[in-house]
């Protein structure tokens, strides 16, 4: 019970992310390199890739620009969450 509450508390995102895929398609960028270009910590990139963090629109746009794609390609909401 406590574990479930804690896990729900820590995991805030239901967004599907393709960040890792696009990172590799763009010259196999490391998490640290990507983090440095958008001025966040590596832990933030890790959390986004794991779906543990709902990032801001600003950061989503910055990541999309750096990875030569669109925000919608990078992040998708699960169907049930559109309602």
């Amino acid at each position, binding site marked *: 019970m406590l574990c479930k509450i804690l896990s729900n508390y820590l995991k805030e995102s239901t967004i599907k992310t393709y960040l890792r895929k696009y990172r590799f398609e763009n010259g196999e960028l490391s998490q640290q390199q990507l983090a440095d270009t958008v*001025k966040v910590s590596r832990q933030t990139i890790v959390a986004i890739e794991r779906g543990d963090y709902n990032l801001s629109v600003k950061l989503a746009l910055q990541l999309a620009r750096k990875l030569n794609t669109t925000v919608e390609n990078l992040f998708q909401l699960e169907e049930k969450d559109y309602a």
Partner: protein
Amino acid sequence: MLKKDPIFWMATSIFILGVIIFGVTQNQLWLFLLAGSYLLRPTLASLNIAKSLVDERQMSIQYRSGNIAFAVMIIACIIMSVYQSNKGDHSWEFFNAIVIVGLAAKALSNVFLIGNYRESGTKIIMGVGLMLVLFVSLENGFSVGMLIESAPFWGIVGIGWLSKKFPRAIGGVVLGITVILLILILSKGFIIGQIITAVVVTVPLVTAGVSLIVGDRIESDPDGETVV
């Protein structure tokens, strides 16, 4: 890994300063500087200072942990207040004051962040008035005496209601009343209890007065609905 940016060096300096002064004076109160060094980064970021030096996820974590810490501190203060009160120790009033100051600070910063100043100003004045009426009612019970004694506070509620129609004028009146209250409170002695009372009474009223004069950052549509 620690990020060695200007905030890191500032926090480290405060930490070292605290330890050195404690070492020299042997006064443990200087160790509170260590808390200052720990809270420097989130505080600066929350105040929009040096925001570029704080990662957005770190800020999100700071907001959430800050809310938990705030709730824990309020509960701890309430427990200490009840404990000291049961012992007949009047220091419970300090814990009480901390709870009120903390809640007032949260409410007032919410008002500023929402940006709906005039509506909030009205709510603050009416809230302060109703709270004072409630205190009088609890002290005297429902009686004619209570009605007479609470009349001035119903006046404050009325001023709050009028501020919807004449925000700037009422804002000025509220600031005037605040100055008079401040003089009355502090004329009874410049001691910690009076200073706390002055802060608790005047900060919401000054905020309300200024909010009414400044006006809204959020526009209203013709039907009177607030549009964010």
